[in-house]
Structure formats: structure tokens, C-alpha cells
């Protein structure tokens, strides 16, 4: 009855080494799309390295890497239409960036600037949600919005972790989706850890996908380190989501089975609570290597192309770092955007703040 250790997923296309499994076919995509997926996955990994180094240098706050999640994030995001919405948390930048959000946003956010969440008007991405699970009802509501708005058949994909499935908001959000039959894909990155809590202590259910049965729609478990299988599963879920005429319910719960090979975030030390050796079998399923093998075997990738990708990615990242670090917030911004029109009290607080700031400068506020 409890979570079975090891790897078991219903949906998989690439084997552990990246070869197409007998009886499976890769998604029907142009060759260069496959290469783009690969490039985007590498971009995530390169970005993670850069982000961690910025954090170590004190140029950025706590950061959670996507290590081993790249296939799930990029694979799923590639299945989205431009006008589909993403309702994210904090470990899915690979998806939001693939969906059009510049990395400078992610960086600014982790550098402590709300500016990071000023998502461009043509990019359909909600702000990052830090409270675990709370974004799930938002996603259901966003799905209800699509359904209510004439001529809008956009779908809404919500990402969250395995830990989030224990929160009441997961339950309530999915139950509403079932009842209102919303165009939602609930995408669970089951990386088997919530900080130090392993999945067996998170729930006694043997899969997370089966939780969908409580809400009257389908749950599917996919190999979350197989970008092609994730793409396919998400594509189908989105098709269902959009199909208002169908008799079948429209929401889907996708459980992407993967593993948090790295630390929870830059403040976490996994050696407190697990053996490094536990990560080994999962390292061998690395989504980027598997995709690389798949592409190389099809003659779509060479060492030169990889080197070029690496360089293009580096450029993209460095330009994002530059933009992000160039941003200089005005301390006064604290008072902006609390309401459309500021009430007198906040205006007074701002005035008092300005006076003090003018009189004493930054030193009056900054601690060592």
C-alpha cells in the first residue's frame, strides 16, 4: 500500500540510456524541435550552476536547483500553446522560461526584487508561489476563467512538488477542478523529497497519480526524467483539457516521477538526512544524457553543436545576469502597489520614510 521504492511509471518512451523503448514512438515533432528541447534543458542546467555561484558569492538569495527536473520542466512546457497559462512554484523555472519568461526575471526575483514578477504582458505566467500548494486553487480559478471567457480555450498548467500533495489546498483545488471540469493540468514534480521528508513519510498512497481518483478525473504517472514521455503525456492532457465537447473530464493529474538529486536549496545539506548513495540509481536516468543519446543516434547532435549550444546558452544567461544586476530598486518602491490608490496612512508612512531617508541616507537603515 505504501510508496514503492525504485522506478515504476506507466508512461515512458526513452529507456534509461536514451534509446526509444520497444513499441514506443517519439512524439511527432520536427527534428529541430527535439534539438531545441535539448538546448533548453542544458540551459536550465547551466543556469542552475550560475545561480548557485551567484548565491555563493552573495549576489543572490537562497535558490533551489532544477537538477534532474529539466526533462519534466522542458518536456511539459514544450507541449503548451503560447496562450496557455503556467501557475508556477519555485522549482519550475525551466517551464516558465521555456514558456517565454526571461531568466532575468528569475534572477531578479531571487535577488529580492518584486520586479522579477513583472511578467511581460504577452507571457502567460503567474508569479512564483512560495507557500506550498497555495497556487493550486489559483490555477483552478485561472482554468475557470478560461472556461467562462467566450472564445478562450487556453489551458492552465500548475506545477507543484510531492510535498504539496499533502496540503489541503491541493485537495480543494483538484476537487473544484473536477466539479467545474476545468481545463487544467496539475503537474506534480514528484522528486520524492520535501526538504528532508521522503515520499514514504509524505503519504501512504502507493502513487501520487492515484490521488486523482478522489476527484473524478485521470491521474497518470510518467517517467519524469524522460522528456519525450513527459511531452507526450502533457500534450494529451492539454488536448483533453481543451476539449469542451468530450464526455471525459478535462483536468488531469500528472505525476512526473523523478528524484531530487541535489540539495533542497542552497541552505540545505542533504547529508543530514540521507545517504548520497541513494541518489545513484537516479543519476543514471539523467534526462539530459538520455536526450543527448536520443539525438545523437538520430544524427541530430554533434560535439560541435553541443559546444555551440553551450556557448549560446552562456550568452543568454550572462545577458540575463547583466540585466538583473543592473536593476536598482528605489527603496520608496515598498509603498507602491499596495493598492491602486494609496490611502492617506500609507502616504504618510512614505512621507516619513522619505524625510528620514533624505536626512540620514541609506546608512540609517542598512544593517551590516
Amino acid at each position, binding site marked *: 500500500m505504501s510508496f514503492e521504492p525504485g522506478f515504476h511509471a506507466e508512461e515512458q518512451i526513452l529507456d534509461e540510456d536514451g534509446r526509444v523503448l520497444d513499441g514506443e514512438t517519439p512524439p511527432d515533432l520536427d527534428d529541430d524541435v527535439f534539438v531545441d528541447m535539448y538546448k533548453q534543458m542544458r540551459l536550465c542546467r547551466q543556469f542552475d550552476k550560475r545561480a548557485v555561484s551567484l548565491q555563493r558569492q552573495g549576489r543572490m538569495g537562497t535558490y533551489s536547483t532544477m537538477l534532474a527536473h529539466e526533462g519534466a520542466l522542458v518536456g511539459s512546457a514544450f507541449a503548451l500553446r503560447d496562450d496557455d*497559462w503556467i*501557475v508556477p512554484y519555485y522549482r519550475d523555472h525551466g517551464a516558465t522560461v521555456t514558456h517565454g519568461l526571461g531568466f532575468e526575471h528569475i534572477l531578479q526575483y531571487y535577488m529580492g526584487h*518584486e*520586479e522579477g*514578477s*513583472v*511578467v511581460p504582458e504577452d507571457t502567460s505566467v*503567474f*508569479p512564483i*508561489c512560495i*507557500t506550498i500548494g*497555495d497556487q*493550486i*486553487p*489559483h*490555477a*483552478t*480559478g*485561472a*482554468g*475557470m*476563467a*478560461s472556461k*467562462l*471567457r467566450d472564445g478562450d480555450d487556453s489551458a492552465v498548467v500548475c506545477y507543484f512538488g510531492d510535498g504539496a500533495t499533502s496540503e*489541503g*489546498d491541493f485537495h*480543494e*483545488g483538484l*476537487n*473544484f477542478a473536477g*466539479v*467545474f471540469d476545468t481545463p487544467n493540468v496539475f503537474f506534480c514534480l514528484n522528486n520524492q523529497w520535501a526538504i528532508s521528508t521522503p515520499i514514504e513519510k509524505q503519504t501512504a498512497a502507493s502513487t501520487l497519480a492515484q490521488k486523482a481518483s478522489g476527484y473524478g478525473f485521470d491521474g497518470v504517472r510518467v517517467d519524469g526524467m524522460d522528456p519525450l514521455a513527459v511531452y507526450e503525456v502533457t500534450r494529451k492532457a492539454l488536448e483533453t483539457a481543451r476539449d469542451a465537447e468530450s464526455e471525459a473530464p478535462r483536468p488531469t493529474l500528472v505525476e512526473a516521477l523523478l528524484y531530487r538529486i541535489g540539495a533542497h536549496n542552497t541552505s540545505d545539506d542533504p547529508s543530514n538526512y540521507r545517504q548520497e548513495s541513494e541518489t545513484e540509481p537516479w543519476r543514471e536516468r539523467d534526462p539530459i544524457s538520455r536526450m543527448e543519446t536520443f539525438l545523437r543516434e538520430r544524427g541530430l547532435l554533434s560535439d560541435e553543436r553541443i559546444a555551440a549550444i553551450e556557448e549560446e546558452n552562456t550568452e543568454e544567461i550572462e545577458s540575463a545576469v547583466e540585466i538583473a544586476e543592473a536593476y536598482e530598486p528605489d527603496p520608496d*518602491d515598498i509603498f*507602491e*502597489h*499596495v*493598492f*491602486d490608490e494609496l*490611502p*492617506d*496612512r500609507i502616504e504618510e508612512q512614505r512621507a516619513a520614510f522619505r524625510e528620514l531617508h533624505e536626512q540620514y541616507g541609506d546608512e540609517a537603515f542598512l544593517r551590516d
Partner: protein
Amino acid sequence: MATTTPDPAAVDSQTLTLVQAVREGLYTEMKRDDDVLILGEDVGDNDGVFRATEGLVDEFGSDRVMDTPLAESAIIGTSIGMAVRGFRPVPELQFMGFVYPAFDQLVNHAARFRTRSRGRFTCPLTVRVPYGGGIRAPEHHSESTEAFFAHQPGLKVVVPSTPYDAKGLLASAIEDPDPVVFLEPKLIYRSFKREVPDERYTVPIGEANVLREGSDVAVFTWGAMVRPTLEAAETLAEDGIDCHVVDVRSIYPLDEETIVDAFKRTGRGVVVHEAPQTGGMAAELTSTIQEEAVLYQKAPIKRITGYDTPFPLYALEDYYLPSAARIEHGIRETVEF
């Protein structure tokens, strides 16, 4: 500040109870703006447990008046999702004590979408909650915890005390681009009827209302406590004590100007509310007043409030709620200080 609202005597109007005026307000806003939606438990076929949504599902259909599953966090959470995407949801939570499962969504999200995204995303939401004691209801049905919401930056909080204000404040709340907690004093849902204009009008958020001019003491209150306060003021008038009574109406933001001016007239102040004393809004009013007008102060500003005890089951609720006599007594003490 003056409100630019129609004179009910001069326009077409009907005589309505407060809850009927809420219903009129909802109807008017839904007619005016297709993006206005209602959702909640029993708001559709059942017309709401207090009939505040009577007939609306028949008029606007179940896409705009949605009966939801029994889950307050998702009622607010999905409302947020719809609001961020451009709708103007008006969720109903059935009783004040059932707000708390949704408290996280309100304080951590509804209140913050605008700040979080520097205005890129907004959350125009009006959360309707019947509140307060006095109707012999079960546990959790009688609380008044406006202070919880007033302390959370990013939320506005209003409380009407008349049918006229109910319709007008509701219009303001629904057209407000930010989240508003709209508290309805259910004790006086049906206690009296007043003229309410048929046409749309607004009562601005952030404006208190002087109900009675007086020169001896300023008394501040709101919602269902307005009536016993006015009653106390009448009795005191017979004894030559002249109360200046202010219906605060807007709990956040407070109309500091009207409040402080009222206090300055008399140098004596009393605040009346149903909520427990400690950490209640009376403390905020007191603090605000003395910040601006300490030199006018002739007596301690008195708080006449619920006690620092959970709201009792109904057999004793009348002893808990400020009564006209208790208010009268407190005002007397303040005047005689």
C-alpha cells in the same frame, strides 16, 4: 470628504432591509459588469443562507452564480485565480467563523498579488461575510474579527450599517481594483427598512459618516453596534449629555480626518465594537486619535467592546455584546472623567 451620491428622497427608490440592499447591490453590479461573478456555498438555488443572492442564479445563470463545494480556501483561492485573469469575483463565506480556512489565501495571496508583481497582476475581489452576534446562532457564527483583516496590508475592510450604505459600499467594493472584505452585520439584516435608490450609486470606501452631531463626547462605532450606540446617545441627551456619533464604516483605510476632527470637537472619545478588546480596532482608533490630538484629550479614550473571551454560546451572548446600557454607562464615565 463629501460623497457624491444621490439623495434617496429625490430619485426613484424602494424601501429595503439591509440584506435586500445587499442583494440589490449585487444585482446592480452584475447587470453593469459582465465580469462580476458570485460563488460560494448555497448561493445558487438556495439563494444564499440569508437570501442575499435571491433570484440571482435565475437571472444570471449558473456560470455567474456558482454553487461551490464546501471548501472555503478553494472558494477564495479560485476567486483569486479568476480575479488575476480579469474577472471580479464576489465570493460569499457563510459566517465569520468560516473565514479562517481561507485566511491563508486572503492574507498570503489576495492581499499581495499587486505588490508581489508591482502592479502587473491585480486581485479585484469582494469577499462578502455575514458577521456578528445576537441571532442565537451556534458556535463560530457570531464573531466580528475585522481587526484580523485590517492588520493585513493589501486588504480593505468595510462594514455598512444601513441599507443605503450596504448597496453603495458594495458597489464601491466591487468596482475597486483591489480586494475588499465586505462585512455584513447579520443582526440587522432585517431589523429595519430604509429608502434605497434604484439607480446605481457608490458610497466611497475610506469615508466615515457622522450620524449625530454633538459637543460632549465623540463615539465611534460601526455595523450592528450603531443602533445601541444611537440609543445610548438618545438616553444621554435626555440627561444633557450631547454625543457626536460617527459610523466608521471603513475599517481599512480609516477616515482619519473625520475621526480625529470628531474627537477634537470634544476632547473625549469612546469606541464601541463587538470584537474582543485586546487587539481590536478600538485600540487602533485610540492610538490614531492620540497621535493626532493628544493635546485635545480630556479623558482616556474608552473601549466598550466584547470581552477577551471566546464568543459564548447563545444563552449568554447578550451579556457579551455591548448593550445600549453598557454603552451609556461607558460614555457617562468618559464624560465624567
